[in-house]
């Protein structure tokens, strides 16, 4: 391609407006067609050119790194990049990096203290970004997850009903569709559909599951009747994790805060509280001792009149 075309998620109306000037930059596809036709096709053909940059912070633990690699294997339209230093200014560097790799969105796994995993999901040039806390991670390597599916087959994304109830969930849903959905006719994708990804909101968390579709059919016919639909089963492939949204920002890796989880407690705080509770143990013991002493002093025992009865 001669020039990089701008991001395709601009709306149809916008394309219509700019379509008149298109013929000027005809290098490849616009040579022979008339302007009218170009306008037609550009409106009709929407091409999803989503490309996701997947990277992680330094000092990520192996488990979380495996989770990242699992996601990389699930997303044929992604680019994996080197680890990035997780500094305060990482937003700027990441934005640059994404632009450099000509990606349109980014998944950034940030590991702190070797135990807390945060996932940044961002639409890159100027779209919103979300920061999640990742819980309950199970990677694909676990032997309990017995399914398997084609590498690069396009997933069917299913969403629970409560994704449409609130604006922030709506936004998240759209981002999930764009980032986790493999673009149609992507060159690395396979033409068959044999896995389904489940996004479900439960307890204000987004739960991610990936299942293989095992369908009793003979591959020759592409027909499925009712019985086959009934007999279909799912086998979990993994990975599985649970995302707790913390914040949604207006820009990519920054910008105005649009949403803040009102129930969120940082894992650091949880740990410090726990520690505080444990720290009180000794103080409590000492307190109890002194209290007992005071009590004993204030209520002296009566003198026992039979104490030296058997002494003589």
């Amino acid at each position, binding site marked *: 391609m001669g020039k990089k075309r701008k991001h395709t998620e601009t709306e149809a109306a916008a394309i219509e407006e700019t379509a008149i000037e298109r013929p000027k930059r005809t290098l490849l596809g616009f040579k022979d067609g008339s302007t009218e036709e170009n306008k037609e096709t550009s409106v009709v053909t929407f091409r999803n050119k989503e490309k996701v940059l997947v990277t992680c912070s330094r000092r990520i633990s192996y488990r979380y790194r495996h989770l990242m690699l699992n996601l990389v294997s699930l997303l044929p339209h992604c680019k994996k990049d080197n680890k990035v230093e997780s500094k305060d200014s990482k937003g700027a560097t990441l934005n640059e990096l994404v632009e450099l790799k000509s990606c349109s969105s980014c998944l950034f796994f940030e590991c702190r203290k070797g135990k807390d995993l945060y996932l940044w999901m961002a639409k890159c040039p100027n779209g919103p970004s979300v920061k999640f806390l990742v819980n309950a991670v199970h990677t694909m390597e676990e032997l309990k997850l017995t399914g398997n599916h084609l590498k690069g087959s396009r997933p069917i994304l*299913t969403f629970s*009903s409560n994704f449409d109830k609130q604006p922030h969930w709506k936004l998240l849903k759209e981002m999930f569709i764009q980032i986790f959905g493999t673009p149609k006719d992507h060159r690395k994708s396979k033409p068959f559909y044999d896995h389904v990804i*489940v996004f479900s909101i439960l307890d204000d968390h987004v739960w991610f599951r990936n299942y293989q579709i095992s369908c009793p059919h003979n591959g020759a016919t592409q027909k499925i009747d009712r019985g086959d639909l009934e007999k279909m089963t799912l086998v979990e492939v993994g990975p599985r994790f*649970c995302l707790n949204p913390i914040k949604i920002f207006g820009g990519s890796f920054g910008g105005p805060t649009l949403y803040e989880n009102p129930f969120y407690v940082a894992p650091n705080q949880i740990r410090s509280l726990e520690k505080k509770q444990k720290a009180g143990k000794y103080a409590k013991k000492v307190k109890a001792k002194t209290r007992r002493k005071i009590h004993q002093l204030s209520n002296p025992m009566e003198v026992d009149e039979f104490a030296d009865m058997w002494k003589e």
Partner: protein
Amino acid sequence: MMVADELAMMNPENEDFDPETESESEDEEGDQQVVKLSEPSKTAVYNKDGLLERLADISWPDDLDWTHRLSINREEQEEVDVNDDLAREHSFYTQGLEGIRQAYVNFQSTGEPFLRPSDYYAEMVKSDTHMEKVKGRLLAEKRRIEESEERRKARDNKKLAKDVQAQKMKERTKQKKQEIESVKKWRKQRQQSGFDKEDAGGLDLAFNGGEANKPYQRSNKKRPGVSPGDRSGGKATFGGKGKGFDKKRKSREFKDSKFGFGGRKGLKKQNTADTTNDFGGFHKGDRSAKNNKRVKR
């Protein structure tokens, strides 16, 4: 910027959440039970208009073909307890299943192939070695279950066998008694009907007569092929061999029966009253002394 976020989170309200929830967060693994604030913090930002605006910015055109999105929404959903793992996973599973049913119907209406043909091989997400491991684990589990099942069955059988054995013994004694009884009856009848005493004596075999009441004695008869000390009831020498070496076998048998083979030597070598009184092979005096000396030297 991140630090600012963290600081923003640490508003004073976070201090007072109830002790029950915080005690739940023990370790990393138990992070399914997630700590939450008991009540929503009031300072939290929620810019609905901004969110919707951003959504409008990024969203794809509305009239887009479904095959681009491949997204399916679940219509209705019942409430599920988060901490009930089984119910939760079941809910996810049904969501996925309903989703693909709908999706497959949609695919079928487009008419393009969507099912993977059985002869379509391509790289999978999990490698073959990994799947081998998975299979091995499944098999091992299956085997373990089967084994434990078998053990349990054997245990039950053992219990049952005891009962069965007891029952059998009872039956046997009963039968024996009955038989003896019937024979006695028969004899009485015979006596009453007036048969010869001699004949009766001749028939007076094991029952009531001498032998049945005597303790068991070993018969002195030489049984062919059975050594005197053989306790196996003559089965030891008939090892179930073929007929190929009959001739050799016969002579061997004879020798064995004559000189003895196998079995315990103890009984043969013990002194009895007869052997102690028997001085047949005893030589007096010099010879034995000489021999002894020779041995000593």
